[in-house]
């Protein structure tokens, strides 16, 4: 009798164990998480976010454990609140602000134009997504992948279509890691040898006063024009103001290190843990991956083409290669501009010139995010 009870309890546990409840869909998800862990660890694809995302995906798809971000009452459900309520991405932006040097952009404000041009990919991809049958909010979230800015993409998606959060985050961070592979062919195809060889004039020095006024002005202008961008842009600029003011170094240190790291872990794991089989293993994910790539390519192309326009307008003073840096993906895209330029002329140093459009691209995609949120948000 007692022995029977033990047998029945063990049978019960066996029946309720993950092994008995492992369906092939969860298994595939687990295998996908392995691939992402591999990419993060061995290939070092944006590991700071991709490793937590991948592990979150693994946890979310362990059968029975119910450790996904949507499972009411679970650990990850509570940690996910910070994503759901739109708290983590602005705080990450606070940290990014403390780490960003807007000097090259202040020295050459025209770079803003390239940072704007590279966002065209967002809207064209939005159109493509709509055409493939996604709803408006979904299409907006997919388009924002083209902004090449992880926290912005996660912020928009969490507010508009959080069932796509896993796919969009994976696509965004993968393509950001692949920027050095995706961009160069496009850049070379769209420019002539002569254009790529342009040596740009040295940037003017920037005073401390300008550096302090810059974040305040950006907050004012952007938040007045696109109020929905305020949480992202406001925090980015608060971080930058703290950095440039030079009077709150202990806050800056914490914002760019511990606060950012804690939130990165929580954000990564819980964003990954939204990707259950039901939401991830659909044809939509494949479409999102394809559309994300298109978004990156169009963004790069628009940046370069606008760079060509500036090349013409300035009678050859602007090297169009810096246009591709406008997609953001700081500082990877700027480095790509530098490398492609140097391949043509070893004595040509475009890095600092490309940092202007690069950081302008961060502001640009936040503005684009604000526009999309104002149209599709609650």
């Amino acid at each position: 009798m007692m022995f029977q009870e033990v047998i029945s309890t063990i049978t019960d546990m066996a029946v309720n164990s993950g092994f008995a409840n492992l369906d092939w869909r969860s298994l595939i998800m687990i295998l996908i998480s392995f691939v992402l862990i591999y990419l993060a660890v061995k290939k070092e694809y944006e590991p700071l976010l991709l490793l937590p995302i991948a592990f979150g995906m693994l946890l979310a798809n362990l059968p029975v454990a119910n450790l996904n971000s949507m499972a009411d009452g679970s650990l990850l459900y509570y940690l996910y609140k910070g994503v759901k309520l739109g708290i983590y991405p602005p705080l990450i932006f606070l940290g990014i602000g403390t780490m960003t040097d807007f000097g090259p952009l202040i020295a050459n404000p025209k770079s803003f134009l390239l940072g704007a041009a590279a966002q065209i990919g967002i809207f064209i991809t939005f159109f493509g997504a709509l055409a493939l049958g996604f709803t408006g909010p979904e299409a907006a979230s997919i388009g924002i992948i083209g902004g090449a800015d992880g926290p912005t993409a996660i912020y928009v998606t969490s507010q508009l279509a959080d069932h796509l959060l896993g796919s969009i985050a994976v696509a965004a961070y993968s393509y950001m890691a692949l920027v050095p592979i995706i961009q160069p062919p496009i850049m070379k195809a769209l420019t002539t040898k002569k254009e790529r060889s342009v040596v740009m004039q040295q940037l003017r020095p920037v005073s401390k006063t300008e550096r302090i006024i810059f974040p305040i002005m950006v907050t004012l202008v952007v938040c007045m024009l696109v109020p929905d961008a305020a949480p992202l842009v406001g925090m980015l600029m608060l971080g930058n103001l703290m950095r440039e003011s030079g009077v709150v170094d202990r806050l800056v240190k914490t914002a760019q290190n511990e606060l950012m790291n804690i939130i990165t872990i929580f954000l990564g794991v819980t964003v990954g843990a939204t990707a259950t089989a039901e939401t991830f293993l659909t044809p939509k994910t494949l479409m999102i991956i394809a559309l994300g790539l298109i978004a990156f390519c169009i963004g790069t192309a628009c940046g370069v083409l606008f760079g060509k326009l500036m090349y013409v307008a300035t009678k050859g003073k602007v090297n169009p290669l810096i246009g591709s840096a406008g997609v953001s993906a700081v500082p990877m895209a700027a480095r790509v501009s530098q490398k492609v330029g140097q391949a043509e002329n070893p004595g040509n140093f475009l890095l600092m010139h490309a940092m202007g459009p690069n950081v302008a691209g961060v502001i640009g995609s936040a503005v684009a995010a604000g526009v999309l949120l104002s149209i599709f948000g609650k």
Partner: protein
Amino acid sequence: MDFGLALNVIVTGIIVVFLALILLILVMTAMGAVITRLTGSKKPEKQIEKSSPAPQAAAPAPVDASVQVESGIEEEVVAVIMAAVSAMQAESGEPGTFAVKSIRRSREARPAWSVAGLQQNTRPF
């Protein structure tokens, strides 16, 4: 698919993004002009002097393999400094008259070509 909505979003989006960033160009340019007028642009000039090494040697400008780089300063930064030097030469009209011999981290907290800023930006977020 609502084609009207799509076009609407695309056009509005692109216009607003450009509008915002063009506005920023205007504001920053205006601010730069005001500051320059107020300070008489004296301070920046001094900064230039400080951050430019005095031309001494006569080797050709493109990268010299023998350049000594202090450990911890990345290749890129050398490239940037080289670029800066080249650019200044281009301005002064006498190209190819000196090369960087040795690079040491400057003591200055926030030079125009913010080396530290660059390295911090390198962290991938």
